[in-house]
């Protein structure tokens, strides 16, 4: 038996670590690739959504009778068309979800909880008719006072969003409902004692704004439910199986009745891990008996999908004079949006995780407000808490007149360090990324007038999870891979590369495809930086199993024992014997039928052993003291990838994450008016970085292998969005000699602080 855990960390690699063209490249540069809204079916209807104009209101009545009789309207659904669920956290695949909240988020029931909350959906023969029908639906509301900010939402007299929500995690359990869903706490040691021993303590409060993932492709899907209840769903998602499970619960269909096919996905960043349109399209299709296509407008994407939390963050750090952290404490208050589930738990867990802490405490509050329910966004929770910690650490370095890299090196977590959330860390690359930053020419380059240099590090866990994939050896010696995790940034390339490396055949003989939910066992979604790690693990294992089978067939043909055959460079080779004998994969494949049948293998497992990825970023900014505009002059992102399978796409993750972080730090924010309406619902006003806003993003890939993966892979996708917030804020603070503690650092905010301190 081949050793499935054997790693290739010491082996000379031929494919892994190179930069071959991606298998889906041609489709994507020619317009052939089909994304969520690119597919149509005969007899298809168009679905549209009626959304709440109020931030908080009771629904008194819904009358769809006028809309129903409009010519061309084929079905209308409201909350009456969906089963209600009790408030209960239940497993949904690998996620724990509260179906009471989910069914209310996809379709409001008793109340609307944010502007843009879905209240009804229509399917009609044309877009115009559907739009007209929305206008004919008569909804009577009783408008209630709303609340948008966490500090207002936690006041005793605040309007309460959910009358049955009692704060979890405080003793004694409250008897009165509030907007605080949950309190969490992590840490160890005695922070008070630590602060008493500190030579220097810095304590600051920070504010971050709600931001959106900003994927360029809006949510879209195409559903077709037949008369016998068989459902076909095509949609843009990070996890087809997760969509299947959500929809089967929400619509009362079995998993076997729904086949979900993931389209090519036009960006997700965590925002396409839940369902919005999909259950509506299925319900509309079921009711009308015709296929229904739904797409969100950009404004709907902003008002009704995503985003991540805005937050208040309080951080206190105490150090000895030599820079050693003796105590760290933080309180995080994250907006959950209309339903609980702010990423404050992971935010609290990783706040101090880059460091070896003696006394540490991180407290988090999950607070509901009348904004869209947050969904995951790249390292959910991490950028916010680590922004606070990394900013305070920078201020401490300045006060101690210490180099900001030195103070981080002095406190860096390493293998064996106890993480603030409890367990000991395995090998991690914090020190290595800091050393690489220190050695980078960027770090010692001179700065111009009004320029400042900022440093920050970031930690993200990464995950494994349920994963399933298969490999087929075709009769002509080519190879098929069926993968179950959405390819969001080039994972088909890295999977084909790992299979190619194992098999010893050229990558262009290997065709990776993303399977639908009927083609494989359950796959958790592409998220948590898990695809290359987890799916890669199953690809390596199934490929090794296929190699075993190939060797068996060769042994049969040679009439020798299996142990006489080894696999070298795409060939079976006879170990003993006078003359060297080999048989190529293609030769064995050609005779597969005669030697026992087709050759295929699959691997399904719940992958463990993900390794955290650490990153350190260096940024130079220039502050225009007349306008307050901050320009990014130079940027270097350094990160431990464990092993970069396809370095170009690892760099791409680092560059893309850094620029999303730049947007978060400098421009992006949800702006509400006093009615609770979002005022910037387009890319013109919600300004994500454009090409001319940023310089080249230099990258350094550090490789501290993850011992649990055959090639040493860690996840890389999420960590790079963590450091930019603090790195940029620190750079602006150093450029101006004024500490900034509020994001985004947009020109008006910077200018105000420059003028008034």
């Amino acid at each position, binding site marked *: 038996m081949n050793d499935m855990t054997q790693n290739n960390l010491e082996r000379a690699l031929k494919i892994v670590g190179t930069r071959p063209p991606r298998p889906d490249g041609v489709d994507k540069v020619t317009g052939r690739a089909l994304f969520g809204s690119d597919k149509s079916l005969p007899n298809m209807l168009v679905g549209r959504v009626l959304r709440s104009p109020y931030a908080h209101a009771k629904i008194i009545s819904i009358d769809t009778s006028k809309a129903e009789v409009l010519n061309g309207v084929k079905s209308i659904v409201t909350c009456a068309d969906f089963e209600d669920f009790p408030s*209960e*956290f239940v*497993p949904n695949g*690998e*996620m*724990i979800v509260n179906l009471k909240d989910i069914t209310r988020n996809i379709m409001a029931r008793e109340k609307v909880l944010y502007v843009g909350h879905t209240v009804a959906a229509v399917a009609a023969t044309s877009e115009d008719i559907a739009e007209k029908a929305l206008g004919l639906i008569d909804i009577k509301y009783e408008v209630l006072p709303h609340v948008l900010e966490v500090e207002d939402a936690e006041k005793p007299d605040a309007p309460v969003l959910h009358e049955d929500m009692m704060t979890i*995690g405080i*003793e004694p359990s409250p008897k009165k409902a509030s907007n605080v869903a949950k*309190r*969490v*706490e*992590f*840490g*160890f040691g005695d922070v008070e004692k630590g602060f008493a021993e500190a030579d220097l303590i810095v304590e600051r409060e920070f504010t971050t704004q709600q931001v959106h*993932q900003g994927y360029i492709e809006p949510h879209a899907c195409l559903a077709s439910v037949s008369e016998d209840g068989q459902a076909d769903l095509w949609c843009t998602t990070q996890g087809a199986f997760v969509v299947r499970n959500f929809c089967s619960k929400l619509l009362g269909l079995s998993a076997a009745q729904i086949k979900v096919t993931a389209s090519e996905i036009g960006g*997700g*960043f*965590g*925002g396409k*891990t839940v369902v919005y349109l999909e259950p509506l399209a299925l319900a509309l299709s079921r009711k009308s008996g015709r296929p229904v296509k739904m797409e969100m407008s950009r404004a709907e994407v902003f008002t009704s999908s995503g985003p991540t939390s805005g937050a208040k963050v309080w951080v206190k750090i105490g150090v000895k004079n030599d820079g050693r952290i003796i105590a760290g404490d933080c309180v995080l208050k994250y907006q959950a949006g209309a339903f609980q589930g702010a*990423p404050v*738990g*992971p935010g609290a*867990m990783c706040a101090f995780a880059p460091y070896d802490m003696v006394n540490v*405490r*991180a407290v988090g509050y999950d607070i509901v407000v009348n904004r869209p329910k947050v969904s*995951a*966004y*790249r*390292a*959910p929770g991490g950028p916010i808490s680590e922004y606070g910690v990394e900013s305070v650490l920078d201020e401490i370095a300045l006060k101690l007149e210490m180099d900001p890299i030195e103070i981080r090196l002095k406190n860096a977590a390493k293998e064996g360090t106890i993480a603030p*959330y*409890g*367990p*000991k*860390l*395995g090998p991690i690359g914090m020190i290595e990324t800091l050393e690489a930053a220190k050695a980078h020419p960027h770090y010692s380059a001179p700065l111009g007038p009004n320029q400042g240099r900022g440093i920050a590090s970031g930690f*993200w*866990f*990464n*995950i*494994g*999870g349920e994963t399933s994939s298969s490999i087929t050896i075709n009769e002509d010696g080519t190879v098929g891979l069926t993968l179950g995790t959405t390819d969001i940034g080039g994972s088909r390339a890295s999977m084909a590369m790992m299979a190619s490396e194992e098999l010893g055949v050229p990558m262009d003989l290997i065709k990776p495809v993303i399977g639908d939910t009927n083609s494989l066992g359950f796959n958790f979604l592409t*998220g*948590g*930086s*898990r695809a290359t790690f987890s799916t890669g693990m199953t690809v390596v294992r199934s490929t090794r199993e296929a190699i075993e089978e190939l060797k068996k067939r060769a042994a049969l043909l040679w009439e020798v024992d299996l142990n006489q055959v080894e696999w070298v460079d795409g060939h079976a080779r006879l170990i003993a014997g006078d003359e060297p004998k080999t048989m190529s994969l293609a030769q064995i494949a050609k005779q597969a039928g005669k030697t026992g049948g087709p050759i295929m293998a699959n691997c399904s497992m*719940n992958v*463990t*052993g*993900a390794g955290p990825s650490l990153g350190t970023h260096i940024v130079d900014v220039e502050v225009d003291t007349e306008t307050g505009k901050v320009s990014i002059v130079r940027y270097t992102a350094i990160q431990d990838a464990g092993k970069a399978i396809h370095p170009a796409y690892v760099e791409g993750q680092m560059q893309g994450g850094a620029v999303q972080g730049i947007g978060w730090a400098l421009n992006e924010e949800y702006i509400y008016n006093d009615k609770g309406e979002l005022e910037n619902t387009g890319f013109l006003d919600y300004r994500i970085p454009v090409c001319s806003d940023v310089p080249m993003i230099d990258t350094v890939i550090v490789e501290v292998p993850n011992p*649990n993966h055959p090639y040493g892979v860690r*996840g890389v*996708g*999420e960590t790079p969005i963590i450091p930019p917030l603090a790195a940029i804020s620190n750079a602006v603070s150093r450029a101006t000699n004024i500490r900034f503690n509020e994001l985004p650092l947009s020109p008006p905010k910077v200018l105000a602080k420059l003028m008034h301190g």
Partner: protein
Amino acid sequence: MAQLILTGSLKSLANGVAEFNIQARNVHQLVVELKQICPVLAPLIESEGFAVAIDGEIYQDILFAPIGENSEVHLIPPIGGG
């Protein structure tokens, strides 16, 4: 003897007790044992879906992850991601 170590909120929930000696040899057994030694934590694991770190290795929803003779076990919330 293997030890279950609680920090933060979980420690408060367990009335400040930070360490439990445990007999369990896998996560499945740990859930059963928790019902006896610290009943307040058991529903959390079952309903909210906690992950378990055994000697630093994180296991999410894996009932038969082995717990060694002298393992250090931590309960942590499940980690997702974007």
